[in-house]
């Protein structure tokens, strides 16, 4: 055998692509040729050397990457779901909008009832399969299975001392573009709660501790070792308690009329669901909202809570999912008490009372920052995102890494923290007017600080009087006729 040909065959031997006939020839040649034996040894060494490259990925990286991929996929899925619905165009009038959402959601319920009552699909199992196919969910109905005692749900969850859960939210505007997306882990106990928030769109984490005892809200930025503190008033604590503890939300949901949804498996647990779709139901930081609660049929405790809400006159649609509930888990105090020894306090503000003065101040501060623009919506879900978006715009040019304006050395922490607190107060003020049928309307998407005499916000104060907050942030009380004239000017 020719030594020049051997090189290829030696390589083929390592690559495991040498046929049997050539292998025999190679072996017999190697037995006779010292030069080729030396070549073989060198190849062996090189082959072994190349084997020594074994990158190991830290498990924490794997978890984070997976989380980011799934967040994006769920958002993409939501966009696809939306684009497949033919009637998603938003309507300006809130009643129309709520009715529209009602139609979309009720259709699933109707479908369920239709199939259950259909003689052809009278078998519960068949119905479950059909629904499963139509909705992309695995429904299984056991005729003799335990049932959820819905009437006792509130009492059961109120007796829980410590629990944890995860929430995911995705906000999209009318074009299906992201305006906000985050995941959070919550740890709730009787003294307060902790929220670990992750913003996948800017890859940033914030941990927030709320203590009912200390009356503080602490926002920790682990990456830059900084934190801010907001001192809370009792009035604010009551409202916050309601907003952040899903037990209270569930309690409120259960006071509305609901429709039973049947059963499905949630995280491997058999659960029974209900849907709340009352036109008056919208207190969860949204203007219009539909909620579904799924409860484990064995433990009778919630396993999944889903909210779908609109805000900003239908401009923003948000979906929030509360899942991975662990009720009465092991309570470790350090979970809800921050160790701030290595962190520096960069801002401390006090929460403002929920009144007109705070609203005026919040809108003034926001417009100063946003070149005369006001927040387009006063729904909590989108206003927070608007603050971040506004800061992003301001800091876009000097940002070092992605969007992280928080990292800048000269960042105005006081102003940022105060604006957050103020706008939160403003959203609460707006939500309360909305929920007490005060005919509140906010025109932030149309009106700027540069406009003269245009109504920015209005609400009813007596049977025939309305209070108007004008574009220059002055306040005036007007009659219904005067209001109509002013709003006509706005529309023209």
């Amino acid at each position, binding site marked *: 055998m020719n030594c020049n040909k051997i090189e290829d065959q030696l390589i083929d031997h390592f690559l495991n692509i040498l046929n049997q006939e050539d292998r025999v020839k190679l072996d017999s040649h190697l037995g006779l040729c010292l030069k080729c034996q030396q070549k073989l040894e*060198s190849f062996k060494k090189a082959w072994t050397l190349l084997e*020594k490259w074994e990158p190991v990925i*830290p498990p924490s990286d*794997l978890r984070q*990457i997976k989380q980011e991929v799934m967040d994006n996929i769920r958002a993409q899925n939501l966009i696809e779901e939306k684009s497949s619905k033919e009637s998603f165009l938003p309507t300006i009038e809130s009643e129309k909008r709520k009715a529209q959402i009602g139609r979309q959601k009720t259709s699933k319920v109707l479908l369920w009832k239709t199939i259950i009552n259909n003689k052809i699909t009278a078998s519960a199992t068949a119905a479950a399969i059909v629904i499963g*196919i139509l909705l992309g969910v695995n429904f299984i109905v056991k005729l003799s299975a335990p049932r959820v005692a819905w009437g006792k749900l509130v009492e059961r969850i109120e007796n829980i001392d410590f629990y944890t859960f995860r929430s995911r939210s995705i906000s999209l505007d009318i074009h299906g573009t992201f305006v906000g997306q985050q995941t959070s882990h919550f740890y709730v106990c009787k003294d307060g709660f902790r929220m670990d928030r992750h913003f996948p769109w800017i890859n940033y984490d914030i941990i927030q501790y709320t203590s009912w005892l200390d009356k503080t809200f602490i926002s920790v930025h682990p990456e830059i070792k900084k934190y801010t503190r907001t001192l809370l008033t009792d009035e604010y604590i009551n409202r916050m308690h309601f907003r952040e503890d899903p037990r209270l939300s569930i309690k409120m949901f259960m006071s509305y009329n609901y429709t039973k949804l049947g059963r499905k498996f949630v995280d491997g647990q058999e659960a029974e669901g209900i849907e709340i779709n009352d036109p008056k139901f919208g207190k969860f930081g949204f203007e219009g909202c539909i909620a579904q609660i799924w409860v484990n049929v064995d433990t009778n405790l919630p396993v999944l809570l889903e909210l779908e809400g609109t805000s900003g006159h239908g401009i923003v649609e948000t979906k929030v999912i509360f899942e991975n509930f662990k009720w009465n888990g092991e309570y470790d105090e350090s979970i809800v008490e921050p160790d701030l020894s290595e962190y520096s306090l960069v801002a401390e503000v006090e929460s403002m009372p929920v009144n007109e003065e705070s609203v005026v101040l919040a809108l003034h501060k926001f417009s100063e920052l946003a070149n005369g623009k006001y927040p387009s919506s006063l729904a909590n879900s989108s206003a927070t995102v608007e603050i971040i978006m506004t800061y992003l715009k301001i800091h876009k040019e000097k940002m070092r890494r992605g969007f992280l304006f928080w990292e800048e050395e000269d960042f105005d922490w006081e102003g940022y923290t105060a604006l957050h607190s103020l706008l939160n107060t403003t959203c609460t003020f707006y939500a309360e007017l909305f929920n007490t049928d005060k005919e509140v309307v906010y025109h932030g998407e149309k009106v700027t600080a540069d406009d003269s005499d245009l109504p920015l916000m209005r609400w009813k104060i007596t049977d025939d009087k309305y209070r108007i907050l004008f574009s220059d942030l002055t306040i005036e009380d007007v009659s219904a006729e005067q209001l109509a004239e002013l709003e006509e000017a706005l529309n023209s």
Partner: protein
Amino acid sequence: MTTYSDEQLMSSLIKDGDIEAFEELLTRYERPLLIYIFRLMGDYHSAQDLFQETFYRIFKHRKSFDPKLRFSTWAYRIATNLCINELKSKTHTSEMLIEDINPGKIFSRWPLNRKSNPSPEEKLIKKDLEEKIRDLVKSLPEKLRSIFILSRYQELSNREIAKILEIPLGTVKSRLRQSFKLLFKLIEKRGLIDEL
């Protein structure tokens, strides 16, 4: 969930929109695909981005998945195409890229395998060696590099590689041979044989 084949999970994703099936596929392929992309790109940060893009495309184009293919073939194909396009779009030459990379930075995020509990000295030596191998593989032209990595490190069969890259089996073999020849020359030239 783990009892289902990759292809059954794909079918569940396509027909029922089952996101959990997608999540299971992601769990199964996260580690091997991310390591593959890292080896191909030689840069962990690009690898993370391209990995995410790969799975985004898998989801977005799920309906165009050819059921005659294995899921792994399709996933590796998407990842390879994305990486090759990315490599082509870079204006620097391979050599310049190697110079640009700060290996300390990359490898600080890639702890060495702890199973064997190496001493600090051993760790340093291994890290240094891994960087040298990474540079070697990165010196291969793109066409050869993907084939070599798929074969040597991802341990895929030549037939599978041919399907992933949509080239004849004979081409896979000849390119594998060519890549080893080039690597061997470089190993000799850089005196790395004696490192073992």
